[in-house]
Structure formats: C-alpha cells, structure tokens
C-alpha cells in the first residue's frame, strides 16, 4: 500500500489519473439521486444501482396493476433539447429487437430529467468476464463478433450506439452478450455532448464535435477489442493500442490482428473498414486463419482493398494514412521484437542488419509490388507524395547508416517508378548513389544498377538502361549465375534488348534463361513467372502467336499456383491469353477466357477501373470478331465513356478506345464516324507522345485506311505519307508497324491510280513484314497483290 501511495508523487500520476478525472466529471459529489418510490412514467424507483458518465442508473418497477416488471432506468439531467425529436427517436429505438441489445422499454422527461427504462440486465462487464473466465484470444474475438453483429443490425436500421465501452457491454447470466444504452447518447442531444459520451472512449470525430456515423461505432469497437485482448484486465480506460500488452499471440497472428485493429481505429473515418460488417468479416477471416483484408498478402493487399472502395484519386488521403500506418506498425512491431531478443552486442549488430533487410523487403515486396502498375493498375498517384515524404525523412533518420538509407532509397525509387513518377524515382536513385559512393558494397551497387536500369527502361532510355543492366550483370557474375540478382539482371537485360531492337533474339535469350531460373529459384518463383510473362508478350509482339499462347498457358498455370486464381497477375495473364486466342481465331475460347478474366479483375480492382475497362475492351473486340457488331459497338462506347470519366480525355486508354470503336464502325462502313474518332485519338496521342511514336504512326495509318475507304483519297494520301515519313524517321527498320505504314500507303496510292508508286510502297512493306509473317499470311498475300498491280 505505502509504495503505491508514494507513487502519487510521480509527475502526472495524480493529475493524469482516474481520481482527478472523476473529480472533474463531478459524478460522485453531485449525486443527489432519486428517492425510492419516485415515479417516472409508469415506473417507480426501487434503488440506485449505479452511476455512469451519462447519469445515474436505478432499479425500478412497473406497478400499474397490469403486470410487474423490473427495469433499469437511466436518468440524465437535461436542459433544453427538442422533445419531439426525442420522442420519435425513442420510438425507433424501442422497436429495435435483437438478442444482444438490451431493449429500450420506455422513456420520458420529468422535471428536466431525461429518463430511459431499459431491459434489466444482470451481468458482468465483457472485459471482466473475459478475465475471470480466462477466455482464450479466439474466444474473446468471438465475443466481440457478437457485439459486432448487434451493432451491424442496428446500423442496417440507421441507428448508432455512440457510446460503446466495456461498461455498456455485459455478459448476462445466460452467457449472452448484451449491449446497454443503445443510442441514448444521441437522444441526450448535442448540447451536452461532452457529457453524453465517455471522453476516453470517444472517436476522434466525436471529440471534434463533428457529425458521427457508423464508423464512429466501429472505432469504439476497435478500442473494445484492444481492451479485450489485454493481458491485464484491470486497466480502466481504453488505453494505448499496444500489442505488447496483449495476451500471448504468435507474432504473425498478432501483426494481423493489429492491422485489423488499426484499420478499425484509424483517425480518419474514411480510413476505417467500409462498415462494421466488413470489420467483423475480417475478424472472422482472422479466426479462420484466412488472409485478412487489412493485412493478407502484405500491406499491399490492404492498400489495394482500400483502393477498391475508392476507385480513384479520392483515395489519396485514405491510402496515405493507411500506408503510414502500415509502415509504423511494421517498424514498431519489428523493432520491439528485435530489442527484446537482441542480447549480446554482436547479436544486436546482426539483428540490426536483418532488421534493415526486412524493412527494405517490406517496402519492396509489399509497397513496391502494390505500386507496380503490372500488378496494380489503378494506382493512386498521390501515394507518390507519401513516398516523397518517406524519402525526405530517410535523409535525417538514417544519416549515419548510409547502407540502410541507400537500400531504402533504392526501394523507394522503385516504388516511384512503379507509380510512374519517374523524376522522383530518378532523384531517389541519385540520392542512393551518393550514399553508395563511399561504401564498398557490391551487393548494393548491383541492386542500384539493376533497378536504375529498370527505371531507364521505363523512361524509354533504352541504351542507358542496357548500360546499367550490363554493369549489374557484371557485378552479379561474381555472385554466380544462379544468384537471384544475376538472374533478375539477365532477364531485364533481355527485355531491354528487345525493347531496343524488337529483335527476336530476346526470345532465345529468355528461353535460354528460363531453365536456369527454374533450377535456381523454382518453377513458381516470382522471377520465373515474370520471365514467362515477358516471353509471352515478346512472342506476341513478333507475331509468333501460337508459341505465345503456349507460353502464356504455362505462365497462367504457374501464376495461379503461386498467387491464386484471383490475383491480378493471374487475371491479367488470362486476359492476355484471351487476346492471343482471338488472334488465333479461337473466338469462343477467347470469349470464355476474357469473361472470366473480366469478372476477376472487377472483383480485384472494382469497376469501372483501368483494369476492368481494359478487360471490357478485350471483350468488345472479341464480340466484333464474332460478328456481333452492334453489341461490340455498344460495349466500346460504354468503355470509352467510362474511361473519359475515369481518366480524362487525354489518356492513352481513351485513345485506344477511340481507335477500337472506329475499327468497329469501319466494319459497318460508317467511315465518317470512324474518321472523327480516329482524329480525336490522334489529337490525344499527339499530346502524349513525340511525333514519331509508334502509336501515332499506327493511328495515322489507320486513319489513312478509313479515309481511303470513305473515298476521301487526297486526305487519305496525306495521312498515309505522313505515317510513312514518321515511321522511316522514328522506327527501327524491322518494326512491323513500319511495314504496315507502307502497306496502307501502297493501298492509298493504288486507289489514286499511282500504280508504280503503289508497287514500290508494297515492296517496302513486304521487306519488313516478311520477317514477321509467313508468305501465306493474309497481309502478305494482300501485299503481293499490290506488288503485282
């Protein structure tokens, strides 16, 4: 006892403590109470049974001669307020019947005192119950699920509890959860808001005096869960959310639970789960050892889930704070673990290095994977701002640990690249390079060159990229040809070389690498799957469609095994397979594959999203080939409108939509409309790309073709010759697009009666295209017809 009294001398102990709080709340000293026998409505007071932040609770009896009933009556002194509103809401509450909600029986206002007669529940507080019954963690979570059920039930009826805390959640004598005081905080009104709820348990929006919604109840459920998980049951307030104070839970499970909890108690309501039901579902998933939305597949998954609910740019704030949370949680959990475990000095040093690696891996595998447009297409660009902040704080935080800082900067740079913020990525890589200068760390040098090369590749600085990748490969050579980083570098170098030349050499390079990657990393390793994906793409680009389809099928098999059927990698692969099948004329299969990919992508990314619209576009092309032109056009128009809505007019995807729509219209001989769409696409691409970009050239060629068919030959010739000029200037000699430009030009020339020029153009077309198509290919056949005149 005496040592406890002495503890009051510690700074803040007394004034920050419960006694002072209760003094300020003025509960005990102001309690005059109602005398036994006092009548409130049809009830008469028996005795006081408790006092809470909102008022005094009495046991009361109904004694109107009809029947006897005991109730709990809560009295709240109240000045002012709208009593008609009070009556209406009271009626709604009284109609709410749920096994876990203590029913509101009656209520009224007597002499400035609001009173509520509620079902009398004799029970113990949920946290005390959990402690005295020594419930397991799972059992505690299950009890909270019952609370969630009741809250969800109420939310569906547009009612909020507003004052969830252990004192309002009892376990009755039959072991059932019972929620007290449902909605009473709202009935008491806003004038006394600071008294109406319990400040310590209030959500941020309640404290700020803002409008509260279901998310506020969710927040309080989160606090309740935290209290239930704590090993020490005696703590009175909600306390800090600190997993170290919880019952023993395996680290990974604990981290998941923490993620759920942090999501539910996010400071900003929009960062929380979309509903209490979603919160409950995630807890259920946790109980069942299924991936939880707030954590599974790493934070990337959580971010993507959030993104799904906020399909576009509006999610900046929500995602930003979630990402921050993710990082904070990860760091704090990990560092605490390390501190606990690291005993010896030497061990500590090793641990520190491991910690840094893990942190970096976290950013790489999770944040980065998320930011990579290959896996997540509807990325929110404002995450970039967050990364910039991380980048800035890194400079000060890790000033004396250049190696860790460099590694993190490289990772941040990769994420920025993934987000398409190339300049920021470049800055991060530059900052990393400065830190690497005085370090003789070959591994980091290797990583720098590897990922910087990837960045340059994305910026179409292919030659420089190849430079970097070759350096990376040279360093990696010392690690041996089976080292993962060697293989990473080799794969990317092959891809880079293809980008430079479009040469089929990349096919054999990648084909040769694949068995090595499989042997070193496994059949289903991410790099194996990445390489297969690129190989399929390259084979398609060089028109080796049958082979591409074989590789694509293999890719799908592995991706599904490694990531699951619902993963974006698998789904995007499936969509690409549909494209290949369409090219191969296997239209029914293509339609099936596209439909299944489309459904999956909608699930993962939401609809409309970039990915789902891409799928829709593929579907419409297949419809067109199937001869269902009207349906195809309708779907294409829908896609176009959705893309403009989502992305704005000046976007690559909008231009593609316009081109596709024009193609369908042209099949229906609606050339005038097709031409308008193509010109619009051209205008968009002219804003996006340099003058001799391949997409601009193809667009011009197509436009020439449509104008020719429309009979406006002079215009057609102008477009076609423009396309040829740009292709000659900007495209490698063996690019198929260059051949196609010549082919369209030849067609126009023939139509205008310039036979010799047409023949010569056809020769030029054939020279290019014969490298890509067999002589029996319809296009070559058509070209040969032109050559003959």
């Amino acid at each position, binding site marked *: 006892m005496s040592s406890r009294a002495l503890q009051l001398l510690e700074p803040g102990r007394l*004034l920050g403590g419960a006694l002072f709080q*209760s003094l300020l709340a003025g509960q005990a000293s102001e309690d005059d109470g109602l005398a036994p026998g006092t009548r409130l409505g049809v009830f008469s007071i028996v005795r006081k*049974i408790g006092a809470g932040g909102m008022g005094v609770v009495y046991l009361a009896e109904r004694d109107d001669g009809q029947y006897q009933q005991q109730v709990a009556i809560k009295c709240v002194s109240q000045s002012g307020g709208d009593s008609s509103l009070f009556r209406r809401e009271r009626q709604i509450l009284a109609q709410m019947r749920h096994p876990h909600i203590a029913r509101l029986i009656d209520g009224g206002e007597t002499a400035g005192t609001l009173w509520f007669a509620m079902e009398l529940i004799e029970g113990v507080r949920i946290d005390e119950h959990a402690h005295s019954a020594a419930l397991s963690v799972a059992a505690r979570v299950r009890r909270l699920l019952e609370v969630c059920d009741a809250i969800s039930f109420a939310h569906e009826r547009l009612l909020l509890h507003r004052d969830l805390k252990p004192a309002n959640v009892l376990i009755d004598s039959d072991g059932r959860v019972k929620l007290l005081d449902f909605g009473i905080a709202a009935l008491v009104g806003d004038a006394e808001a600071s008294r109406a709820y319990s*400040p310590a*348990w209030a959500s941020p929006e309640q404290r700020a005096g803002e409008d509260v919604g279901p998310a506020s109840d969710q927040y309080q459920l989160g606090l309740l869960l935290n209290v239930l998980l704590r090993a020490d049951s005696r703590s009175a307030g909600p306390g800090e959310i600190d997993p170290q104070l919880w019952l023993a839970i395996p680290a990974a499970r604990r981290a998941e639970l923490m993620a759920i909890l942090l999501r539910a108690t996010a400071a900003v309501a929009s960062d929380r789960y979309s509903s209490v039901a979603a919160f409950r579902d995630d807890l259920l998933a946790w109980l069942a050892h299924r991936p939880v939305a707030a954590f599974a597949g790493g934070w990337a998954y959580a971010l993507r889930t959030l993104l799904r609910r906020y399909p576009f740019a509006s999610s900046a704030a929500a995602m930003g704070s979630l990402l921050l949370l993710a990082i904070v949680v990860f760091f704090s959990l990990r560092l605490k673990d390390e501190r606990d475990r690291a005993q010896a000095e030497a061990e500590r040093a090793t641990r520190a290095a491991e910690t840094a690696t893990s942190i970096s891996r976290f950013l790489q595998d999770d944040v980065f994977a998320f930011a990579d447009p290959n896996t997540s297409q509807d990325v929110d660009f404002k995450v970039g701002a967050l990364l910039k902040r991380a980048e800035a704080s890194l400079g000060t935080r890790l000033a004396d640990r250049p190696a860790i800082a460099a590694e993190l900067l490289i990772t941040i740079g990769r994420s920025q690249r993934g987000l398409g913020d190339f300049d920021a990525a470049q800055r991060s890589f530059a900052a990393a390079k400065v830190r690497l200068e005085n370090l003789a760390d070959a591994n980091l040098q290797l990583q720098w060159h590897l990922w910087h090369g990837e960045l340059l590749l994305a910026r179409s600085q292919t030659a420089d990229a190849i430079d970097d990748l070759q350096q990376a490969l040279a360093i990696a050579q010392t690690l041996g040809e089976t080292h993962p980083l060697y293989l990473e570098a080799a794969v990317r170098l092959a891809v880079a070389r293809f980008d430079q030349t479009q040469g089929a050499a990349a096919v054999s390079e990648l084909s040769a690498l694949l068995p090595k990657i499989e042997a070193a990393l496994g059949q289903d390793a991410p790099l194996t799957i990445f390489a297969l994906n690129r190989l399929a793409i390259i084979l398609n680009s060089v028109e080796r469609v049958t082979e591409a389809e074989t590789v694509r099928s293999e890719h799908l098999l592995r991706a599904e095994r490694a990531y699951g059927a619902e993963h974006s990698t698998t789904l995007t692969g499936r969509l690409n397979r549909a494209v290949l099948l369409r090219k191969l004329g296997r239209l029914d299969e293509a339609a099936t594959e596209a439909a299944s990919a489309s459904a999956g992508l909608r699930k993962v990314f939401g609809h409309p999203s970039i990915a789902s619209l891409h799928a829709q576009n593929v579907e419409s092309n297949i419809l067109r080939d199937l001869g269902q032109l009207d349906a195809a056009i309708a779907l294409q128009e829908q896609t176009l409108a959705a893309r403009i809505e989502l992305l704005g007019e000046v976007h690559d995807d909008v231009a593609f939509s316009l081109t596709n729509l024009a193609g369908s219209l042209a099949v229906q001989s609606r050339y005038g409309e097709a031409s308008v769409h193509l010109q619009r696409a051209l205008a968009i691409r002219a804003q996006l790309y340099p003058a001799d970009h391949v997409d601009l050239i193809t667009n011009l060629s197509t436009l020439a073709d449509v104008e020719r068919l429309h009979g406006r030959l002079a215009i057609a010739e102008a477009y076609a010759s423009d396309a040829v000029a740009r292709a000659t200037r900007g495209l490698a000699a063996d690019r198929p697009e260059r051949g196609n430009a010549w082919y369209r030009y030849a067609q126009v020339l023939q139509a205008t009666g310039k036979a010799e020029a047409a023949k010569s153009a056809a020769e030029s077309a054939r020279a290019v295209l014969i490298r890509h198509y067999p002589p029996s290919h319809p296009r070559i056949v058509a070209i040969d017809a032109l050559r003959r005149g």
Partner: protein
Amino acid sequence: MGDITVLLQRARDGDQGAWDDVVALIYHDLKHIARRVIGRSGSATFNPTGLVHDCYLRLSKAGPTGVLNRDHFLALAARAMRQLMLNHARDRLAAKRGGGAEHTEGNEIEANAQAEDLIELDQALRQLAGVDERMVQVVECRVFAGLSEAETAAALEMPLRSSQRLYAAAREQLAQILTDAKSS
C-alpha cells in the same frame, strides 16, 4: 461568495471559512474549464497545469489587478487542489461503502484505488508538516497543481535549488513515514 482576492487574503490569515469558499470557487472554475477542455480535445491531451493557469487568469480578471500575485496564487491553488481532491476521495470511498454492490463504470476501480492512496498520502503529508511545512508546500505545488520545478520555486518565492532539494527531501521523508505507518 465574496471577492476572490479578499477571500484569499482572509484564507492566508487563517480564516477557515474563507478558505472553504476559495476551494468552492476554484472547484467551480476547474469543473467549468475541464468540461470545456475535455469536450474539445478528449481526456488524452488535457493538461491539468494549464487548467490551473486558466483558472488563475479567470480569477485575476475578476478581481482588482495587482492585488493578487500570480505566483502566490499558484501556491494557494495547489493547496486548494489538495483539499479538493482529498474531499473527493473521501466522498468516493464513503459512497462505495454505502452503496453496496453497484455496477461500476470505466475508471471507477482505478479511481477508488487512487482515492485510498491519496488519503494515505495526505496523512503522511500532515505528519511531514510537523517536520518542515515548506516540504509540504513543495509537494503540493508539484503533485497537486502539476507545477514545474521552476514554477514551484517561483510560487514559493525560493531559489530553484532549494525547491529541488526540498522536494527530494520530502520524498525521502514521506517514504519513511509511509513505511513506518505500514509496519506499525
């Protein structure tokens, strides 16, 4: 209730009735301010020292300027706070004994425990007053008003080093008194 400065003067001269009025007045203000503070920002961020300063500002505005010395007021406020909290602790424990098995609310358990501790500490402080009244004053400033070392020194009109020394000595003495009380 009279003018605060007059009350304070009389309280300093030993008028118990005036002292009770001061306590009541401060209590009223503390509650007023606390409601506002808690309502605005939640209990987590609220600052009891700020409360005392706020209270002083309000009171000093109410009275004629210059009469009330701020530093001295803080020392008095600290004593008033001690009295207040002690009264509250006693009420609370009396209610607990009288009320039987009430179903208790959030902070109740902890508050009751602190109430018991505070009564024990108060008794020890009474004993300490017999040794050195200045030690008690330092403890009041530090513990009950949440004043810093510098503020405490200013409030009691003594050098900083003295207040530090006295506080350390008070802690030792109190530890001794409490240990003796336990073993006896």
